[in-house]
């Protein structure tokens, strides 16, 4: 119940919002530019040798944690504001009756900006399919929405670099588009659970007047998103970076290169298979990813692992089992896994 304010608060007046936002941005920029000296100063206060393994690990931790949390705060707020312009209902209206190809592309892009919680996956799936959104297009949306999200992208950007973040964005979208397109071409509508095919809700969901928002309302939604996501991921970020710091300081490089280096061809499929039963959000997995990379694990292998963890998860399949037959789930997993494999091998070849 901590999320529900008990006393009705006076809404802040508009000018105060704008002023506060500008001020917060200013402080953010000033602080972000001072992160290196600040973290070094903090490390120096501790009774450890800066050049020992412990010193390395501590400095890594003290720099990365504030950096990642600050980037996360900025982007999550911005995305919260952007998402207030979209809704599942509008997305459905845009996608309904779209041809495959252009429909898949649009669905994957909308998957990034449409507010989506994995617990609404089933109602959303049924709502889309029953309102005339093609099955393959619906899948493109459902693959892109969790995989290409701002938390994953920010963490990759902050910890590994913008090239990798951009590659993840591009290839994540490509997988969502292609996998959905392939599923659409296979014409598997008959493999839905019987009751799903019989539902015709039509696109008659009530228009709830959510597009009559003021800019302040949208700021407020951004703020809500920020609080919600932070409450969910801060511990994971901390744990993940701590893990990363340990690997950074202690795990010998040769071991990682042997297990996850580009030389071992089987490492990509192994990473994908390992990722399926693991279920965590992007925040939990990425700092580990960074430390693995730092120790010589191949980029493609690590990305494949990450995509597999986020996009293919057992709990989600159990949920989807309510609307899809096992056959269809198997096809879904096979198609997405092939896409991830291709990305993994391609990356290992390129970099």
């Amino acid at each position: 119940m901590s999320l529900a304010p008990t006393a009705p608060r006076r809404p802040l007046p508009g000018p105060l919002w704008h002023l506060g936002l500008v001020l917060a941005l200013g402080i953010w920029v000033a602080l972000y530019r001072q992160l290196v000296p600040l973290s070094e100063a903090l490390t120096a206060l501790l009774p450890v040798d800066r050049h020992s393994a412990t010193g390395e690990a501590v400095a890594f931790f003290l720099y990365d944690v504030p950096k990642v949390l600050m980037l996360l705060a900025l982007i999550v707020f911005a995305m919260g504001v952007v998402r207030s312009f979209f809704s599942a209902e509008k997305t459905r209206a845009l996608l309904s009756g779209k041809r495959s190809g252009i429909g898949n592309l649009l669905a994957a892009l909308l998957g990034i900006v449409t507010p989506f919680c994995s617990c609404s996956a089933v109602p959303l799936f049924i709502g889309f399919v029953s309102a005339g959104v093609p099955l393959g297009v619906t899948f493109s949306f459902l693959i892109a929405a969790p995989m290409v999200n701002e938390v994953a992208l920010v963490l990759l950007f902050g910890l590994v670099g913008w090239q990798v973040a951009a590659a993840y964005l591009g290839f994540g979208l490509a997988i969502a588009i292609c996998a959905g397109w392939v599923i659409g071409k296979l014409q598997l509508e008959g493999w839905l659970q019987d009751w799903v095919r019989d539902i015709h809700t039509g696109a008659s969901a009530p228009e709830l007047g959510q597009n009559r928002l003021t800019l302040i309302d949208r700021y407020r939604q951004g703020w809500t998103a920020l609080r919600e996501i932070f409450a969910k991921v801060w511990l994971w970020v901390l744990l993940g970076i701590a893990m990363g710091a340990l690997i950074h300081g202690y795990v010998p490089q040769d071991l990682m290169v042997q297990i996850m280096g580009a030389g071992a061809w089987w490492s990509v499929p192994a990473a994908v298979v390992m990722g399926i039963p693991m279920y965590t959000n992007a925040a939990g997995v990425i700092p580990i990813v960074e430390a693995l990379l730092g120790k010589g694990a191949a980029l493609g292998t690590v990305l494949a692992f990450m995509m597999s963890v986020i996009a293919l998860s057992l709990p989600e399949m159990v949920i989807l089992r309510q609307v899809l037959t096992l056959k269809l789930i198997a096809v879904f997993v096979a198609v997405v896994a092939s896409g991830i494999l291709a990305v993994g091998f391609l990356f290992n070849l390129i970099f």
Partner: protein
Amino acid sequence: MKHIKVFGPGCKRCETTAAMVTEAAQKLGLEVSVEKVTDPREIAMAGVLSTPGIAIDGTMVHAGGLPEAAKIEGWLSA
């Protein structure tokens, strides 16, 4: 008496929403019955795309995300 349905598969947000509705009704001194709908089939049939959704006496008033407490009170007293 108003009959309120909260649609959601039982995630944390849906629980919070149901609790907020009950709380708002108590605050306004209204007698209501709050029913949680968790069956995906029923949720879909009601036309809810994003959960949690709220319907009051059969009319959808909200879908997707936590509603604001002040808004709930508005719907309840309308």
